[in-house]
């Protein structure tokens, strides 16, 4: 049944139909018509003080809940302030929909007041984006935006809507199907590739699970645990995958890469097989590619075919949803292991020995002051594995990834790929003050408490660190 209404009401109805319960934003001229129907809707609008905060809050919402995060801003400066969080969400594959107002369609292209070509600006770092000038297109664009943002490799989608499209009369009809002829993410892995992967694993005597953020995005942590225990091979979790595999698990060697543990880095370097699950061979993990894991064959499972072979050749490429991939790999591997189970004892012994010889550590200041690492470590112990930890970017972020013990997925939020300073302050202050929305669904008895440790570093210390120690690696 279609009903007459204006474009703004159609927009809000569309957002409701897409299942939006909360959105973050700031009103302004071009988007103002949309704010009237928001009052009457079931959607909770959280007013922020800067659009970048709205964007990061939407990201945080998405990272914690697994749902699409939504932010809303006006045209021009409102929209351009969303550029950084959109780029951030694209880098970290976060499902997000940004709604922006645009100047009236007749004024587009005239350098009108508060006009910015936000669709053009955000093309490089949105999964897709729209400029809507006809109110009849609103439901379809919103339906497609949510579908694209949340399916396949998740990412941000921007829907820019001209003010007159919000004001004009239209009818609302929520599309029953989505027709995107150029968009068909492959979810089910090829069975031949799964068989090849299982065979390669049984031939390996030094395998490592190289686990990336995709495992968390695909909610595949349980499957990963099963697979890792089935093979009994060591696991490393990247910055985006902290919590995908319990830190307390014997097989876990910690985080690899520039800021990783000795055991995790060595495991990748000395491995004869990388079982790569939802990771993308980022330069912070690999360092110089030509010297990275030179003796290892690679199984690379990712939902994005463009990631496979981008940085590192994959001996066995597997395109598909990583949850489906692991679920298919478990029985295939079980069968293969029955015939031929490689002996990983000496490999594990080596890695465990490295882990105990070179644990993560820090110096206690001689003057009796408290070291920041200690503060973070204590905070982690006190708040425990159910708390959600949010970091900004820099040295404290690395400490927070190292000295908090993550046991569960979606408990660690940070800006990994883009390295957005201010991610935490914008996000934490906003979201953590408005926790009811997800507490209801996730942990009904959760007490909302915000701890914001302020560490006096008196410098951009990660830059100092890079200058002093790691400059040769970059």
């Amino acid at each position: 049944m279609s009903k007459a209404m204006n474009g703004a009401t159609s927009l809000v109805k569309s957002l409701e139909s897409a299942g939006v319960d909360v959105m973050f934003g700031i009103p302004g001229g071009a988007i103002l018509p949309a704010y009237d129907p928001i009052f009457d809707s079931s959607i909770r609008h959280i007013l922020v003080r800067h659009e970048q905060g709205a964007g990061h809050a939407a990201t945080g919402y998405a990272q914690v809940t697994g749902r699409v995060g939504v932010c809303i801003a006006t045209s021009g400066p409102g929209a351009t302030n969303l550029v950084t969080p959109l780029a951030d969400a694209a880098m970290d594959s976060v499902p997000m929909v940004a709604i922006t107002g645009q100047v009236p369609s007749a004024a587009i292209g005239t350098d009108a007041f508060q006009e910015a070509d936000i669709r053009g600006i955000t093309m490089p770092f949105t999964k897709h984006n729209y400029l809507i000038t006809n109110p009849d297109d609103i439901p379809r664009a919103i339906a497609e935006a949510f579908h694209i943002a949340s399916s396949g490799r998740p990412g941000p989608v921007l829907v820019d809507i001209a003010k007159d499209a919000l004001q004009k009369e239209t009818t609302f009809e929520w599309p029953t199907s989505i027709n995107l002829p150029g968009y068909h993410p492959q979810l089910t892995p090829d069975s031949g590739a799964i068989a090849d992967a299982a065979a390669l694993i049984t031939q390996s005597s030094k395998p490592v699970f190289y686990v990336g953020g995709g495992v968390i995005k695909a909610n595949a942590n349980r499957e990963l645990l099963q697979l890792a225990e089935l093979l009994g091979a060591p696991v490393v979790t990247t910055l985006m995958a902290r919590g995908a595999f319990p830190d307390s698990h014997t097989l876990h060697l910690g985080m690899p890469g520039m800021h990783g543990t000795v055991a995790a880095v060595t495991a990748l370097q000395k491995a004869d097989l990388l079982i790569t699950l939802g990771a993308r061979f980022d330069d912070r993990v690999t360092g110089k590619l030509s010297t990275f894991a030179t003796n290892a064959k690679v199984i690379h499972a990712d939902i994005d075919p463009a990631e496979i072979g981008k940085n590192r050749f994959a001996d066995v490429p597997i395109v598909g949803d990583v949850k489906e991939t692991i679920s298919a790999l478990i029985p295939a591997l079980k069968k293969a292991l029955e015939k031929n189970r490689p002996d990983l004892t000496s490999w594990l012994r080596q890695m465990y020995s490295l882990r105990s010889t070179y644990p993560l550590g820090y110096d206690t200041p001689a003057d009796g002051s408290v070291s920041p690492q200690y503060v973070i470590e204590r905070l982690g112990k006190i708040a425990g594995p159910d708390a959600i930890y949010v970091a900004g970017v820099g040295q404290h972020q690395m400490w927070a990834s190292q000295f908090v013990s993550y046991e569960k997925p979606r408990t660690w939020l940070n800006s990994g790929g883009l390295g957005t300073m201010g991610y935490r302050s914008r996000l934490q202050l906003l979201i953590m003050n408005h926790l009811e929305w997800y507490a209801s669904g996730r942990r009904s008895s959760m007490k909302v408490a915000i701890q914001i440790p302020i560490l006096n570093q008196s410098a951009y210390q990660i830059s100092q660190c890079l200058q002093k120690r790691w400059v040769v690696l970059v």
Partner: protein
Amino acid sequence: MSKHTLSVLVENSPGVLARVSGLFSRRGYNIDSLAVGPTENPLISRMTIVINVEGHPLEQVIRQLDKLVNVIHIAEVIDSKSVQAELLMVKISATPKNRFDVEAVVETYEAKIVDEDATSITIEATGDTAKIADLLSALERFGIRELVQSGLIALERGSVTLSERTLSTSGIPIANGVQADYQN
């Protein structure tokens, strides 16, 4: 040098060219030429892109391109299995003295004279990249005053069509009115 020709079927919607060219520029891929135009299907445009993929595996370029939501299908065009053509218009200096020589060159290359006046001749020619290059070097001695050239377009030989092969499975009705599956 590693040149490849891609036929790319895209949705006929605003901004598609910007998305494609933006992708090439931000990932550092080199476009030699790009030609875009309508097809037999009003919903679809077709781009013919000649790329030089030195330093980037062709596969990676195709996969990145395929991530664009508006890109429906990408096929590599093999030279020997396709007909290819560029369009050239070139204005050369002409005097009554050399006019006969110019006409001889034009005839050799199956080009045609489309405009002339007392001091210039404008020649139009179509052909594959090599033929157009040869024609230009043959015309050089007359003095090239201005030239404009289109990108390469290409079509597979034989009765198979890219549109029929791909569109019917991607939820777009194909040209001859056959309604393809519109359901997702």
